[in-house]
């Protein structure tokens, strides 16, 4: 609290710009230890805007105008809060307070550790058990006769940025592990990230080898051979170096580098050309500038998009994932992935590949598990990358942003493949930056354990899981074509779009249109109620007639729609034709017959054509892996009509209900 120079300023104006409309709200500004809160004066609406201090990435004080002194709060979710103070002194005070509050110097200043965790001990413990990497290894059927758990890193002695629990090839002896670890940057030896149960191929991750120009390590070479042996179906492995080839070569001068195909038998090297964190940081700044341009022309926009290079980087990340997924699924070949340290680009490539390979990771819970495993536990440096503490700005980089954006781009191509929606991706991103809960705090598992985070804070996953209805994609069907099997995205440049929801959310049509997702969700909610009513009616009917209850199901066969190919592939209806071809010009009548035949042909035998109907409502059916459904009860929507940046906690939310 000692950093707050003035806790309350009245008659402050909040300038808003949405959908081309400018609006000014008059209200009171409060500074708390954790939030900046603006409460509108208007007695009816009293709209509130909450900004978590850790969501503020920058403060600007443009020159004062006749209406007062201006203060801009630039948030990490790219929103800008524009405030006008009648007194310059207040503006200076708020600016100074926020400058300090938004740049905490130690973890203990962070919001997630500033709450009293003992009030809800049981809930806290449960929150940490919701998402565990160990569940995921179990799900993959590990350990098995190919991959085994090793205790080599249980005290973080072999590698301090790796998790305690590691899975390695059965053919890798402790000596090989030790030797390989010594030959890898920061001791990050090749360990399992994903095991594909259909092909028995695996995705392994590590950091670059300390090879220099000619150095080699027998154990490291044996380590990769062990990886190959753990896949009975192939006699080589791919080593994917996710860096541009030139960067990898330059690293050799520093005694690092990449695997030589001469030294390692049976490997094939592949470079993915993903640029480093510094390139990505400045690229994101440039695409942000594109989104913030005032009334740009189409050319300004497209050239700005091109010059930012952002979509090129997104494509590189997806391409890396596609390469790995193809190797594993189509060729049945295991892949070892690394970059320099193996905690940024490697995390991106492995997790993108996992999402392409494994339908489970396209579920809400699955994505949580994947981030917990490939990012949190494997030492992606969240606190450095997302600037949780005042520190070196050169460590900050939008690495997770890019992974989440790849998922968004994929969802554009596969609208039915993901259980979650865009909101979920945006919220996960916000949480990574705001560090509102303990999950993303710190840079490694070792550090988190030392901080005793599980005793002092909550896990973000239970918060997100509680809201899963909000994140639900109504088009998702677990049993449907694109939700199943391997995703094979098209990565031609024209398939990538600017993620407007993140980079330019204010540009909306007016009045704010209903989205298909909103409409479908409300229809589906209606259907659930109808199902309930139908069940009740059938019970009453049975009671009245004395006949046994017969739960009749309502079934609607799914219609096959083949829009672009069959119906309109030419302006002439008979695109398919099954009469003898003797005098074609006179026969045009076979369209319906033929299109029916074609429809039947394309119809797969599909048992899941109609929705399963359960009289007790299908809420459960949505979450096949619902481990803690009790968490959902009694949670009210905290912020209807209010703007919350970085969230607010339950107690304070009580203030805001109107």
């Amino acid at each position: 609290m000692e950093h707050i120079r003035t806790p309350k300023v009245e008659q402050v104006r909040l300038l808003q710009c949405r959908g081309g409309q400018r609006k000014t709200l008059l209200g009171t500004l409060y500074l708390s230890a954790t939030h900046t809160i603006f409460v509108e004066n208007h007695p009816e609406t009293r709209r509130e805007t909450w900004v978590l201090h850790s969501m503020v990435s920058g403060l600007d004080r443009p020159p004062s105008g006749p209406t007062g002194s201006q203060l801009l709060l630039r948030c990490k979710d790219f929103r800008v809060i524009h405030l006008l103070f009648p007194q310059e002194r207040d503006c200076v005070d708020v600016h100074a307070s926020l400058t300090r509050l938004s740049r905490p110097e130690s973890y203990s200043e962070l919001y997630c550790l500033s709450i009293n965790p003992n009030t809800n001990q049981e809930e806290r413990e449960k929150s940490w058990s919701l998402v565990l990497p160990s569940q995921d290894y179990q799900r993959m059927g590990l350990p098995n006769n190919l991959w085994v758990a090793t205790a080599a890193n249980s005290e973080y002695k072999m590698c301090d940025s790796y998790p305690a629990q590691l899975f390695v090839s059965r053919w890798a002896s402790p000596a090989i592990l030790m030797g390989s670890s010594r030959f890898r940057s920061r001791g990050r030896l090749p360990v399992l990230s994903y095991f594909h149960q259909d092909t028995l191929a695996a995705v392994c991750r590590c950091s670059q080898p300390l090879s220099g120009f000619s150095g080699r390590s027998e154990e490291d070479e044996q380590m990769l051979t062990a990886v190959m042996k753990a896949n009975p179906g192939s006699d080589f492995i791919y080593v994917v170096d996710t860096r541009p080839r030139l960067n990898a070569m330059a690293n050799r001068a520093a005694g690092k580098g990449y695997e030589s195909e001469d030294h390692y038998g049976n490997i094939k090297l592949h470079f993915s050309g993903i640029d480093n964190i510094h390139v990505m940081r400045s690229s994101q700044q440039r695409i942000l500038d594109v989104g913030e341009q005032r009334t740009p022309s189409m050319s300004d926009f497209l050239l700005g998009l091109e010059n930012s290079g952002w979509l090129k980087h997104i494509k590189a990340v997806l391409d890396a994932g596609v390469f790995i997924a193809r190797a594993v699924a189509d060729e049945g070949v295991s892949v070892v992935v690394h970059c320099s340290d193996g905690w940024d680009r490697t995390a991106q490539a492995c997790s993108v590949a996992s999402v392409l390979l494994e339908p489970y990771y396209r579920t809400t819970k699955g994505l949580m598990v994947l981030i917990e495993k490939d990012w949190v536990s494997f030492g992606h440096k969240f606190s450095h990358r997302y600037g949780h503490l005042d520190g070196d700005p050169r460590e900050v980089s939008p690495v997770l942003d890019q992974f989440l954006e790849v998922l968004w781009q994929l969802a554009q191509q596969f609208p039915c493949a993901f259980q979650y929606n865009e909101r979920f991706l945006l919220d996960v991103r916000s949480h990574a930056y705001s560090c509102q809960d303990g999950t993303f705090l710190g840079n490694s598992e070792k550090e988190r354990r030392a901080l005793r985070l599980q005793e002092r804070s909550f896990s973000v996953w239970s918060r997100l899981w509680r809201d899963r209805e909000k994140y639900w994609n109504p088009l998702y069907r677990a049993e449907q074509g694109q939700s199943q099997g391997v995703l094979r995205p098209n990565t031609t440049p024209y398939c990538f779009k600017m993620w407007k929801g993140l980079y330019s959310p204010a540009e909306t049509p007016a009045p704010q249109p209903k989205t298909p997702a909103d409409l479908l969700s409300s229809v589906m909610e209606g259907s659930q109620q109808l199902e309930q009513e139908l069940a009740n009616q059938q019970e009453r009917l049975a009671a009245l007639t004395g006949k046994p209850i017969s739960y009749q199901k309502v079934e609607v066969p799914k219609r096959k729609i083949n829009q672009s190919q069959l119906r309109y592939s030419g302006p002439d209806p008979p695109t398919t034709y099954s009469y003898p071809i003797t005098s074609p010009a006179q026969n045009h009548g076979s369209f319906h017959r033929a299109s029916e035949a074609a429809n039947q042909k394309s119809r797969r035998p599909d048992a899941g054509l109609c929705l399963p109907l359960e009289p007790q409502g299908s809420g459960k059916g949505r979450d096949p892996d619902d481990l803690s459904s009790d968490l959902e009860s009694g949670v009210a929507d905290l912020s209807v009509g209010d703007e919350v940046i970085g969230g607010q906690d339950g107690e304070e939310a009580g203030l805001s209900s109107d």
Partner: protein
Amino acid sequence: MEFAELIKTPRVDGVVLHRPFMPTVEGTLCLTGHHLILSSRQDNTEELWLLHSNIDSIEKRFLGSLGTIIVKCKDLRMIQLDIPGMEECLNIGSSIEALSTLDSVSLMYPYFYRPMFEVIEDGWNSFLPEDAFKDLESMTEEWRLSEVNRDFRVCTTYPPLVAVPRDVDDDTLRKAASFRHGGRFPVLSYYHKKNGMVMMRAGQPLTGTNGRRCKEDERLINATLRPGKRGYVIDTRTITVAQQAKARGGGFETEANYPQWRRIHKAIERSNVLQDSLIKLVEACNDQSHSMDRWLSKLEASNWQTHVKEILTTACLAAQCIDREGASVLVHGTEGTDSTLQVTSLAQIILDPTCRTIQGFQGLVEREWLQAGHPFAQRCSMSAYSNSKPRHEAPVFLLFLDCVWQILRQFPCSFQFTEQLLVLLFEHAYASQFGTFLGSSAAERLRLSLPEKTVSLWSWVNRPQEIDHLSNPLYEPNSLVIWPSVAPQSLLLWEGVFLRWNRSPRCQEEAHEEMVHIIEYNKELQNKVNSLRRQLAQLETQEPLLQTP
């Protein structure tokens, strides 16, 4: 002329057809007067039927004695035919070229096509001007239907009936017509029920370099203003282009002569520029080897999206003047048959919920494009692959459809139809078995006897099965004015047309099926619950009777 003369080789065996996202088919290639047909002559195998008029250009290649013809269609599809035998290939190639560029309208397929579907409502009578005027009459008495153009003498490109201010007589109209490009005097395009404001369209005024004026023209457009109100003239050209037009006898309304009107200039490009953009855009979309940088810079260089933005912005401006400013609007460019129609028709989509229904949208196309005299025959005779130098070709209508798609995408629940209707209109505007898009004006359509000799596209579209197919499952009637965002980041490339043949549609179709299914399941449940409710109510009233016999 007989078609047979043009068909040098009517039939070749062993031809292999390659199409995007479909299996290759080997079979017999046949050429008829209007179609290119490839059949495998096996049951249940898909065949290709392609209208010659849909073929934009062809490319021939030879490898030994195997010839390959790449057929590039006006709907932007490309197919490849491998034809054994050099002579056959050359013959087929030259036959296609001849048949796809027939000059005479009367040889076009619509004159030969006989519908194999039942015509429920003859589309030629579906959208008559007198019917549209009945709606207007129910709202206001300030307008009348004039027959001044009954014999197309006053304006060759206007329909026989046009709506004009009640107080203006036909003589004034005739004089005003002589002062407007192509005789296109100001006529009513849209009446905004909410506030009684109107949108009119016309050709440019023929002021010339010496600043000619026409009292009748001034009287005509002033008659649309309420007392003390000002109106807006939206000139779709830049001030420079409008100035230059004076040298050729054209011009614009000066403040001195039209003191009650404020003129705004916009910058919608003319037809040759648009055609060039289309060619560049399609070329960029078809080259899949581009890097991201190259793709974005080619997309930018095509300027297509710039046109979309400019047209939408101008339409929003017109709508804004009417709805927000409460002012009447007159829209024109040079001829008043291209950019003018883009603006007036899009403004109506923004303002008028009726235009967002399937029937209403057809009516809009009929009124603002077909009746209003957009020269379809000239504009749509060639598409993006044509090798010949464009003369009057331009994707004016396609740009309009693209803009509608942008609004539809931003308001996905406010339209009764899906993107498919827009794609369908694009296809049929360029090549069709129906007569709707033949000819360039009402006069020409009459002269060609299209209503008697050809089938209307609307007869095909307005059958239940087709309507069902084009319906948007998410439609919720929205009576509001809808304002699309015209920021560049809100405007996307229309994948449904430009990437249609470059990527598999399957996943998007699955999504559509899923939406349809969710909605239909809900309706079915509702029906079931309602019927059980009735059954229960009946049982409950009978129950006491049963218990006391």
